[in-house]
């Protein structure tokens, strides 16, 4: 995973990005990479992507669909959506707290 200097992708986790990408609908690997690059500016490399996909699949947070022409789409499961929601809520709290504390500076 490599990013430009100013983008927020430096602080992101591939699993979180994949779950966020799949939240909008099932996608195959290439579509995930393109989608993540578009909404976050981070270009995930295939090795990192599939390491994260394997982890998420084993946790039951995403599941594979039937392959189409060598490409296999994945979709987020209910457990995955719950995990993503909880993680984003935590991040939301961090963001709001950080912004509040930064305001006087």
């Amino acid at each position, binding site marked *: 995973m490599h990013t430009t200097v100013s983008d927020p992708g430096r602080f992101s986790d591939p699993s979180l990005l994949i779950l966020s990408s799949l939240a909008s609908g099932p996608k195959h690997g290439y579509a995930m*990479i393109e989608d993540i690059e578009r909404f976050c500016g981070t270009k995930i490399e295939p090795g990192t*992507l*599939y390491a994260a996909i394997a982890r998420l699949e084993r946790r039951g947070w995403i599941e594979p669909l039937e392959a189409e022409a060598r490409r296999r789409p994945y979709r987020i499961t209910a457990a995955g959506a719950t995990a993503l929601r909880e993680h984003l809520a935590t991040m939301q709290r961090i963001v709001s707290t950080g912004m509040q504390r930064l305001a006087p500076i």
Partner: protein
Amino acid sequence: MVQQQQFFVSEQVRRLPWLLLAALEPGPQPAALLLSLIEQQTGEFCEPGTFYRWMALAERQGWMERVAGENPLALYRLTVAGIAALDRQRAQSLQPSGVKENIMRFVTWIVRLYPPAWRERYEEEMRALLELHTITLFTVIDLFFGAFHAWLDPHYRRTNPRLLRWRIHSAGVLLSVSLGTCFFAAMGWIQVSDINTPADLDRLATTLSPLAYSVLAPLGMVGLAIAFCSLLILACTLIAQGWLSLREKLQGKKEPGKARKRGAPWWYILRLLPIALAVFLLSIPRTWIPSWLGINDWSFNGFLFVLLMDGAIEAAAYVLSKGKAWLERNGFPLAVVVSGAMVSVCAFNVIWTSAVWQLIPRMEAAHPTWQWQTSLIIQLACMVLATVLALLALGLSLGVSRRLRPMSAPPPHTLDTELRTL
């Protein structure tokens, strides 16, 4: 209800009809919505006439198909051929095709570094993704790290079945060589101890301890029976192979699906000649053999047992190559049998060596010649070699037994298994 979804527009698909196919990637869309989607994504006005002409072309090519309704509200979806065409278009890059091919070959090689269990599950889709992806140095480094990481993951650490087959095969060959070496050593010992008649056996019985004799005599009989069977199998195998080879030669074609490459017919005839000679020499009285041929008990027995060893190896290799499918199904029981055979060979060697050791002082006085001493050294070396080979084969077959046992467990990569383990 059809939801409006964004689609992915890269440089390679920034033209109709690829834009059209890319717009259909998220799911079926009505034609009217497709047009507005493309205009939104590209920021350019698209002539309806041009758009519908391209749609007709894509439909004729079988890249998209109508699901329901009539234009402009007809619902279209992407076909498998359309997905493949889109992938091919995306895979085209600015790199020259030769360079691209070499890079792809290299990254495909890196993907092969992943553990077999991982590759069974993800290799195909990973390769499809790499064909579309722009390969950079980061990609290569990332793949290397990915492979390393996957090997560290115990989930994917599964033994390659081909390696297991190789180990079983090697254990079988080592077993044959070990047995052959044992027979060679045994024959040398029999030669030195002058066992040619039943009276010699009686003499041996008085020389050896009763326990050693009671073990050695049955083992010797079993050994001779196995040696005879080896010779018989070698002769039958050579005759069968030679006949099949001759038939192929005469018919001018090879039988399809034969993994084993056969030699020329003359090769089998040449290999049969020593067996025919041995049988001939065994069947005639020794007095008929001219002395100038130099065939005495030593040379004849040596010649016979080289043939026996060849027979054992040939028979084992033939059975193993023919029973490949059986080997794959019954790898574990076979490994257990080979392990058992290895233990027997090791025990046999230990008993034999102790018996020879026991006889050394007595026979030294009776045979103070250099031939006897050389023969004794060769015998002991052969026994040590046979024991080492048997131990090696034992290690291999035990390793196979240990690794094959978990194969009865369900495959680890299914979603159901994953959920059960959570």
